[in-house]
């Protein structure tokens, strides 16, 4: 182990020792033993474990979604990747689980290591923000104490900065790459290559949350993840005759998970118990019961996932030591004169290539019904796909303005019509959309100009429509009989 690694381990062991001492100071061990003897483990312990494992399954869903732009992972693989990271953190120091998890994700998805690590980092940032949000809400339900406020301040600072970084990578990827390239170029080709590679992969790592809907779904999943974890804390309360208090469970879960950011031994021994214990003691739970509760929560947290991790290691044929090394091995591509600085994968074709129901409904309302078409539905679908793709190509600032405008239109539609645009009957939908697209309100017309223009262009240049409107021979047509002449006037 390198010198720096040994230092991390030493700090972790020392920190854990201090927290163990703090946790057991003035603790009556006989009372702890009695609390365990009287504990109602059934059905609460299995329920707690089930809730925790379900949370990991949701983490797997989230992980799969985060890499879905560039890699296809099965849900089981994604869940195993997540669990493996947690398991490694339980048995190896210095949060090596994060690197092991990134290594396993890189191996199973084919993504570059840095990009995989970025996905992990992104999950951590989202987790931190969710925890802070839940803590702010739950803290109002428990007695006010200074250390919770300090925890919120420190957590807010750490995750706020991280969130800003993520936000920059999400909202301004080109700017980030550009600035990095310009700065790194001053330090020679090697540093330049490294900087550009690193930032490219960071940017690719956060690509999934670049749209509002996907960002929203990821944040939603993150909240669900932590609610399931809070479920574990909640289920174990009745085991020690602590009243079922969802807010206390959420509070304890938040402070415990924020608390274990403090360096400690693998498995967060000492820190976990101390912070969890202090959390429930705030509502008057005695120290022995609180300690017993914290110890059981820790066991529920530690044992199933560690065992699952060992099973994964066995199934995937890797050792924990190998996993620790994988992070070091999976280096970015070295920049060379004829080598790409970095290769980025193609975005996967997904069902997002299909137009949304909203766009189909909107386009259908904008298109005329002047031609009898063999397959009108297909034409509408093709036009809507084109319009949606075209609008997606607008520069970001204009795209956002359009998205805000269309969101406003949808909201007003619901408020006025008491149903969504998609649910409106075609005649009513057409009249409503035309009021916006061709009415006297200039801003609404501007909002719809791009939509209606591209829709009409695509409709009238669609093969089916052209075939109906441009017959090669049309009986009775009066042909122009102007005298052909070629006169060249003065310029």
């Amino acid at each position, binding site marked *: 182990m390198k010198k720096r690694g040994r230092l991390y381990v030493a700090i972790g062991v020392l920190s854990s020792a201090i927290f163990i001492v703090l946790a057991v100071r003035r603790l009556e061990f006989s009372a702890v033993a009695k609390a365990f003897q009287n504990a109602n483990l059934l059905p609460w312990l299995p329920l707690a474990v089930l809730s925790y494992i379900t949370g990991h399954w949701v983490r797997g869903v989230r992980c799969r979604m985060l890499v879905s732009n560039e890699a296809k992972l099965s849900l089981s693989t994604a869940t195993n990747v997540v669990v493996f990271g947690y398991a490694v953190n339980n048995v190896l120091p210095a949060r090596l689980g994060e690197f092991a998890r990134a290594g396993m994700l890189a191996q199973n998805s084919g993504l570059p290591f840095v990009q995989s690590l970025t996905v992990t980092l992104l999950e951590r940032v989202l987790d931190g923000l969710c925890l802070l949000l839940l803590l702010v809400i739950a803290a109002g339900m428990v007695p006010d104490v200074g250390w919770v406020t300090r925890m919120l301040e420190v957590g807010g600072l750490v995750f706020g900065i991280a969130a800003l970084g993520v936000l920059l990578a999400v*909202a*301004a*990827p*080109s700017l980030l*790459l*550009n600035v990095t390239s*310009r700065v790194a*170029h001053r330090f020679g080709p090697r540093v*330049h290559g490294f900087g550009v*590679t690193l930032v*490219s992969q960071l940017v690719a790592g956060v690509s999934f949350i670049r749209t509002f809907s996907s960002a929203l779904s990821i944040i939603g999943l993150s909240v669900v993840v932590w609610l399931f974890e809070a479920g574990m804390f909640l289920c174990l309360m009745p085991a020690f005759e602590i009243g079922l208090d969802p807010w206390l469970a959420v509070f304890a879960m938040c402070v415990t998970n924020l608390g274990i950011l403090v360096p400690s031994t693998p498995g967060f021994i000492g820190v976990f118990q101390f912070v969890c214990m202090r959390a429930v003691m705030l509502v008057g739970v005695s120290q022995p019961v609180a300690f017993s509760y914290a110890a059981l929560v820790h066991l529920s947290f530690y044992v199933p996932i560690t065992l699952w991790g060992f099973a994964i290691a066995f199934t995937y044929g890797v050792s924990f030591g190998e996993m620790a090394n994988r992070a070091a091995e999976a280096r970015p591509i070295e920049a060379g*004169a*004829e080598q*790409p*600085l*970095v*290769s*980025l*994968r*193609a*975005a996967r074709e997904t069902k997002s290539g299909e137009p949304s129901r909203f766009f189909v409904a909107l386009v259908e309302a904008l298109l*005329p019904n*002047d031609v009898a078409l063999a397959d009108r539905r297909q034409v509408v679908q093709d036009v809507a796909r*084109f319009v949606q793709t*075209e609008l997606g*190509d*607008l*520069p*970001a*600032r*204009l795209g956002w303005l359009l998205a805000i405008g269309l969101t406003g239109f949808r909201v007003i539609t619901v408020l006025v019509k008491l149903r969504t645009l998609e649910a409106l009957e075609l005649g009513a939908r057409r009249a409503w959309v*035309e009021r916006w697209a*061709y009415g006297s309100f200039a801003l609404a017309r*501007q909002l719809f*100009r791009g939509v209606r*223009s591209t829709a*009409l*262009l*695509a*409709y*009238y*240049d*669609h*093969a089916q*429509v*052209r075939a109906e409107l*441009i017959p090669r021979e*049309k009986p009775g*047509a*009066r042909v*122009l*009989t*102007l005298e*052909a*002449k070629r*006169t*060249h*006037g*003065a*310029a």
Partner: protein
Amino acid sequence: MAQLDAQVLIIGSGAGGAVTALELARRGLDVLVLEEGGRYGQADYGRPAPEAMRKLYRRGGMTPIMGRVPIGYVEGRCVGGSTEINSGFWHRTPREALLRWKTQFELADASEEELGPHFDWAEDMLGVGLSAGEWPASTRLFARGVERMGWSYQEVPRAAPGCRGTNACAQGCPTGAKTGMSRSIVPAAEAAGARVLSGVRVLQLLKKRDKVVGVVARRQHADGASDLVRLQAEHVFVCAGPTETPSLLLRSGIKYHVGNTLRIHPYLKIAARFDEVVDAHDHVLPLLQVKEFWPQLSLGGAFFSLGQLAMTLSENWPENRGQMQNHRNMAQYYVGVRGTGKGWVRPTLFGDDATLVRYELSDEDAKALSIGLARLSELLLAAGARDVFPSVWGLPSISKEADAARWLDEVVPRSRLSLVTVHAFSSCPMGERREVCAVDSYGKVFGFENLYVNDASMLPDSPGVNPQGTIMALARRNAMRFADANAA
């Protein structure tokens, strides 16, 4: 892996980049052209507009110019650049414009006489000439209107020898008659030794003091994957077009008079319905221009497809949608103004590396457009049009001359105008006046030893005519001067 370093790196393969590549390669320089878009063959051209836009246009054609009056703007993004999707209309730079550039920008060695040989060369290379056959109905009707108004017109020469009149220029000429750069200059440059790499977008120029030492570029593969590559070059010519050239320079920290002086020719489209069957979709666009009112105003013919007609009518769609049934009797024309407003170009801070373009129509432009609306409407009604349909909200149609003449005095409110343009320039103006120019009289960027701009960006201001000829002539002049100084 392909050798990606070069003696001369040319960014862009449009009218400026292709000519530069040919001239430098002919003089024995090692030339590499990087083109962001794809390289397409004849089979890819002339496809329906939606397909063509996705392939040949920057951002699928969604590059509007923002301002109080948003203006639809498109440019090519493929080997050959915008010359692949324009009409092929050809003009030499008007004498007045060259005199103005000399006076106001101290542009050296760019008189009519000095540029003459370069125009001769370009016209010879592209087969520029007048149409060989009978004028199509849309042109003859326009001529009739001009004559009845007592004005004069000229047939505009085109770089499209043997044009078969498919009216699909904007989708890439399907017959190969139009001599866009991909059919003419680019193959000649390759024959002379230039290498052309398509699907490579330059993200940044790498500077070292007063030199550019290379670029960072994204190379797109057919499967959608991409590589970031770093290329080295002794000299760099940026020929990425009027919006992308300043955007790239700004992204690279080169700001001196870059991107602040964009000019455009704003156009207002007008559809006209005649008694006669015109079948404009089946013939070349109207070939005549009225220069009676130049430089403030030009009147001429516009592309026609069912989709394009619908777009023109769409400003007043509820009233005009029925006219789509009369499409065989309709043709489209335009009012173009010189463009005295001002605009700017900036790379976006957010999102992918897009470019934001802004242009504010001047009062003079708005007045000229209104007068042009009146003039063109009068002309078309005199030609026999039953109605004309301007792309102006709240003005569904004009069917009497008196209604048209009203706009000689009144100004169409800006909020009602729907404008388009395909001509943008002057975002890095050239000349010896350093206090207003970004590059010298030969395209060399001020403050840099080996960096040049050689495309529409360098035109000092609006030429008032289709700019392809001016770009090619100036680009060739600049390239030859560079080669004289640097060729072995």
